[in-house]
């Protein structure tokens, strides 16, 4: 049985409230989701909270997952939506009249904050801070999580052409900064 089939069976059991299946689903997905959340939020504490919140919401909404095989993409989309909601909430509390959504400042010291992270990882996180969460999400879905353009379009509910053109723009900007030696 391959990993995808195993996951589908586990999700079916988790939907029925099987605690062992729930624990296994979390175990299989936590590292991957945590890495995604880290790249999205760029902060360790925010990534931990977001990862936890995403799993809890996902476990409540498992019955809404129409394709268990698309679990990880669905998880990332959920995390992105929760993150944006949290940003809007904190924005409305702090600066109710402002249209700009505040995020973790790009100049935070990342070096040494995440155990095992390479310089490339630190640099990528720094560069990602220049993109809005939707652009970050798309980039991570395709280039880090390995989803195809079609899968990304289904996850984000936009056309495949929109995904391609948007991603091309984001990648060009990203590489410009990467090659330019973006620093803190």
């Amino acid at each position, binding site marked *: 049985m391959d990993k995808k089939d195993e996951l589908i069976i586990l999700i079916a059991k988790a939907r029925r*409230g099987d*605690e062992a299946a*729930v*624990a296994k689903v*979390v*175990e299989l997905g*936590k*590292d991957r*989701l*945590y*890495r995604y959340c*880290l*790249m999205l939020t760029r902060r360790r504490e925010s990534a*931990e909270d977001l*990862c*936890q919140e995403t*799993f*809890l919401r996902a*476990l*409540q909404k498992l019955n809404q997952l129409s394709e268990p095989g698309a679990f990880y993409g669905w998880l990332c989309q959920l995390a992105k939506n929760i993150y944006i909601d949290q940003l809007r909430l904190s924005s409305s509390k702090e600066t109710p009249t402002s249209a700009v959504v505040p995020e973790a400042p790009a100049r935070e010291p990342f070096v040494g904050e*995440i*155990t*095992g*992270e*390479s310089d*490339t*990882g630190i640099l*990528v996180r720094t560069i990602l801070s220049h993109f809005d969460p939707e652009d970050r999400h798309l*980039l991570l879905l395709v*280039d*880090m999580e390995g989803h195809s353009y079609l899968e990304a379009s289904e996850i984000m509910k936009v056309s495949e052409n929109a995904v391609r053109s948007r991603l*091309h723009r984001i*990648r*060009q900007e*990203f*590489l410009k900064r*990467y090659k330019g030696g973006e620093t803190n």
Partner: protein
Amino acid sequence: MASQDKAEHQKIESEMKAIFAAVKATSITAPPFLQSRILAHWREGQTLRRRLVFWRALSFASLGALVVMGSLHVLRPAETSPTASVNQYYVIHVDFSEKDQQTVSQAEVELPPGVHFASSKTEVRNLHSLRLPVRVAAVGRGKLPFVVSSDHEGRESILVRLIGPSNEVIREQTITVQFAKSGSVDDKAGRGEIL
């Protein structure tokens, strides 16, 4: 030109994949406590959900019992007017004669002030009168049920007009119900018949 664009797209895509492959190659893992925290919250949520289901079932069962008790009071034969409790739902059955069953298409129910139709919608509760379609087959033995409540004690007259297919009034009848304080409902409640 198109092939040049395509080649450039592919080059950019390859570069990006290589960068993120390097990111994934590092061993970033979720903190060890994260899984146990998620499971603890999940278990708590499951316990709360089970409690909610239990209390919801209990409250529905109680409401159902109240409605049944009210309709039993209405249907039991007696010489006096049926008695209902204030601020509790009460089912009234309109009985039809055999002849009515052939000619009646609607029943208009008109309530006195302080008596309300039972509904989750405020606009229906606040209505003074309501027209109900009558389908003899659907109502079975010629009964039309509707549910009311009163916010005060006293004897109240509910007017029922039987209306024909051309909107003509076939007959008007009055149902009298005695509303009493909760706990003081008379055992000898009457049927909700048209008098």
